[in-house]
């Protein structure tokens, strides 16, 4: 009986993951190789033409998504690293207060936050409308429906997920190591570059992983902030599935997106020299 305990404990979880994670992936793989439509029914044709068709039609949006996701990730890193650094080394007794304030946005629905952004950035909204009223901005100034708005929205929404893992990594850095470097005549910059930065890389790795994938695949920001010229692959997949009911194309696109993201993660892991991708990400 004792030997069976772990299996009995794990069984419901296993079943859930098997039935609702693995089987659906298989179902999607199968749909992506079929042809037909929701009304006439689908037929298994094992043709990969769904993939080439989908890519032919939507490569612009796919490339744009990767670009926007990448730009947002770089922006998050640039904005978030200094914040994580300051809180970890100078936050003192108020560290938890700062972290709480950074997490505050998550008490508001993701969708609602994005819509509030839309309010803030609206052409004649409370921010730009007021500035225009004061004559500080030209009347035709606008931010909504631009690349800047979408990338800004993505950066905004996932920034805390970038800051937290970097903070955790920096928090673990022993200040005595930095002192030792300075005792050995390293300048402040050199101590940062050669000691602190390398020690924080696992956090950077986890942060990029936690932000790049969801930011690239997010359909909400582009829909609310982007206008028609900034459609991302997430919007296409959603429309193909839910409006056009073109399941084969949508499945092929979903797999392509996931494949590209996996390759991206792999290349990134190799480039950073992280020994164990799974372990770094699981933390």
């Amino acid at each position, binding site marked *: 009986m004792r030997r069976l*305990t*772990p*299996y009995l*404990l*794990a069984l*419901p*979880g*296993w079943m*859930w*993951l098997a039935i*609702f*994670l693995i*089987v*659906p992936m298989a*179902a*999607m793989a*199968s*749909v992506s190789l079929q042809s037909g439509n*929701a009304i006439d029914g689908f037929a298994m044709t094992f043709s990969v033409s769904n993939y080439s068709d989908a890519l032919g039609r939507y490569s612009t949006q796919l490339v744009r998504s990767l670009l926007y996701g990448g730009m947002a990730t770089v922006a998050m890193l640039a904005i978030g690293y*200094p*914040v994580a650094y*300051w809180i970890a080394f*100078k936050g003192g007794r108020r560290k938890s207060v700062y972290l*709480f*304030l*950074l997490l*505050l*946005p998550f*008490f*508001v*629905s*993701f*969708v*609602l*936050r994005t*819509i*509030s952004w*839309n*309010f*803030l950035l609206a052409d004649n*909204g*409370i921010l730009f*409308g007021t500035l225009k009223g004061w004559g500080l901005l030209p009347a035709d100034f606008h931010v909504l429906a631009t690349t800047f708005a979408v990338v800004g929205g993505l950066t*905004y929404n996932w920034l805390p997920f970038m800051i937290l893992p970097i903070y955790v990594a920096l928090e673990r850095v022993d200040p005595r190591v930095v002192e030792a470097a300075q005792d050995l005549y390293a300048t*402040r910059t050199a101590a940062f570059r050669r000691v602190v930065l390398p020690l924080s890389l696992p956090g950077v790795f986890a942060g990029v992983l936690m932000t790049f*994938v969801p930011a690239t*695949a997010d*359909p909400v920001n582009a829909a*609310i902030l982007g206008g028609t010229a900034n459609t991302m692959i*997430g919007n296409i997949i*959603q429309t193909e599935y839910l409006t056009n009911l073109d*399941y084969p194309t*949508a*499945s092929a696109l*979903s797999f392509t*997106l*996931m494949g590209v*993201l996996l390759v991206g*993660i792999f290349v990134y892991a190799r480039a950073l020299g992280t020994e164990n991708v799974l372990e770094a990400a*699981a933390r």
Partner: protein
Amino acid sequence: MRGTRMGDRLLHLWTWLVILWLSSPIAVMILFGFNDKQSKSNTTWQGFTLRWYGELFEISDLTTALTNTLVIALVSTAVTVVIGTMLGLALGRHRFRGLGATNFLIFAAISTPELVMGASLLSLFVSGNVPRDSVTIIVAHVLFSLSFVVVTVRARVVGLDPSLEEAARDLGATAWGTFRQVTLPSIMPGVAAGAMLSFALSIDDYVVTSFVNGSTVTFPLWIVGAVKTGIPPQVNVMGTLIFGIGVLIAIGNAIAARRRT
């Protein structure tokens, strides 16, 4: 030395600017819940009113959506916590066949983009002719919350001293008694954290839900649907109230945690 202090000041200022930036949409949300709007859209400030707090439940679709969201979150959290705690215990305490594969599955579930997860569930339901309603939403929510509960519970289980359980058994406690009186209370903080996370993920989810909802509408889905016609102030009021309750719970939790230590 002077340069150092200057740098620290800049970093301090930067941190506050980022916090301000992150909170600004929340401020807008709270503010526009008090906006005395005259036209259909609620995007320009037209004066202060408490009217929308009084008429909070006047839009019946919105109220239904909010109720659906809360019921779905409660049920899926309950299911997730039970299954996730069991799996977390198995992974944290025992060595068994399939441990590595399970860890990989957990990682896969966390790193699959929500969009792909939603799409694949829809593919399954379409292939199997499964009608989509709140049950399929709950199934999906349990799926994406499960790994997070497993990870938080496992972390707590790993940090647990096994001799406590041995002592309980030596004193004649049954397996179930040991679990209920020793193991469960010790891992409770992890279970509670997992439950809160799972509840928060569930009430907030738009992407996965949009694929598996059928005709059932949740709060985030209703909001996105209403974007084109204009967001009514009631949405901001509900958002403000949820925000307030969340913050109060978090602060209460922090105070309770400080008392305990």
